[in-house]
C-alpha cells in the first residue's frame, strides 16, 4: 500500500467518493442559482438578499462551499502529485509540491472564511 499524508482522507476510496458527492452538490447549487436568476428576469438586490437570508439557503450554500473546497483540494492535490514529482522536477520536487499545496490550502481557507462571513452578515 502506498502511504500519503497530504491527500484529503489519506484513503483513495474516501477521496474518490468525496470527489463525486461534492460534484453532485456543486451541480445542484449552480443549477438552482442559475434557474433562480433565469426565472427572475428583473432581479433586484432585495430579492437576492432575501434568498440568501433564509436558513435553508445558507445551509445549501455552505454545503456547496465545503464541497468546492474538498473538490478543489482533491483535484489540485492530484495535479500536484502527477506533475510536481521527483520524476519531473528532481530533488526540488518535494519543496515545490509542499509549497503549491500550502498556497492552495491558504486560498481555499480564505475563500471559505470570507464566504461564511458574507453569508452570515446578511
Amino acid at each position, binding site marked *: 500500500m502506498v502511504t500519503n499524508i497530504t491527500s484529503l482522507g489519506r484513503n*483513495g*476510496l474516501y477521496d474518490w467518493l468525496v470527489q463525486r458527492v461534492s460534484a453532485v452538490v456543486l451541480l445542484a447549487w449552480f443549477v438552482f442559482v442559475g434557474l433562480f436568476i433565469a426565472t427572475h428576469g428583473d432581479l433586484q438586490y432585495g430579492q437576492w438578499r432575501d434568498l440568501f437570508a433564509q436558513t435553508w439557503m445558507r445551509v445549501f450554500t455552505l454545503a456547496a462551499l465545503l464541497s468546492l473546497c474538498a473538490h478543489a483540494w482533491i483535484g489540485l492535490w492530484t495535479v500536484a502529485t502527477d*506533475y510536481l514529482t521527483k520524476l519531473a522536477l528532481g530533488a526540488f520536487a518535494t519543496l515545490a509540491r509542499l509549497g503549491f499545496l500550502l498556497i492552495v490550502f491558504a486560498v481555499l481557507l480564505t475563500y471559505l472564511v470570507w464566504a461564511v462571513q458574507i453569508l452570515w452578515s446578511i
Partner: protein
Amino acid sequence: MLVSIYRYNPETDTAPRMQDYQIELPPGKDLMVLDVLQLVKDQDVTLAYRRSCREGVCGSDGMNISGMNGLACITPVSSAVKNGKLVLRPLPGLPVIRDLVVDMSAFYKQYERIKPYLQNDEPPPTIERLQSPEDRAKLEGLWECILCACCSTSCPSFWWNPDKFVGPAGLLQAYRFLADSRDTHTQQRLSELEDPFSVFRCRGIMNCVAVCPKGLNPTRAIGHIRNMLLERGV
C-alpha cells in the same frame, strides 16, 4: 517504404535520434511490422529489439508503432503506415536500454506487488480445488493477459507515477485474483489497493483498452475493483 526507427545506445550516444531506412516490400504481400524490422536488421545489424514467438503470444515485441503501442508481430504494415512512412519507437515511459529495448523493471515490480498467484488458507483437498463453470467464467477476459506492457506504457497515470500506480496490466491481474472463487485473500488484496494511488490514479481515459493487442479491457476490471472497494467501505 520509409521506416524511421528510434536509435539510442547509451554507451556511445549522447542523445537518442531517429534513423531512416529505405525498405523494399515484397509485392502482393502485407508483412507484419516485425518482418520489416528483420529486413532493417539485414541492412543494419546494430539495431536492437526484442522478439520471440512472432505470433502475439509471448509479448516480447511491444513497441510504439506510428504513435500507437502494439505488438510488432501481429500489426500489419498496411495498418501502421502513415503517409508512406512507418515510425517505430520504444514503449513510452520506461527507461531505454538500447534502441527499441526498454527496461521493464518498474512494470514487473507493480505486477509483483499485486501478488499474482492464488492464495488460499484452507487445507488443500486431496486432488484439486474445484471451481464451478460459472465461477470459472468470471476469469474470462482477465487470464489472457500476456504482460506485453502495451497498456501500462500508454497510460499517463503510469508515466507520472510508475512507482505508486499499479497500472492497467497489474490491475487487470489484481482483479483476476480478486474474482477467483478459489482465492481466500480478497480482503487483504483490497486493503493493499485502497490508497490514493494504486487503483485510484486511473482516470478512465481508456488508452489501455484502445491498445491492448489481446482485446482485453483493463478499465472495466479497474471499475470492478473500485466497486468491490466501495461495497466494502460504505
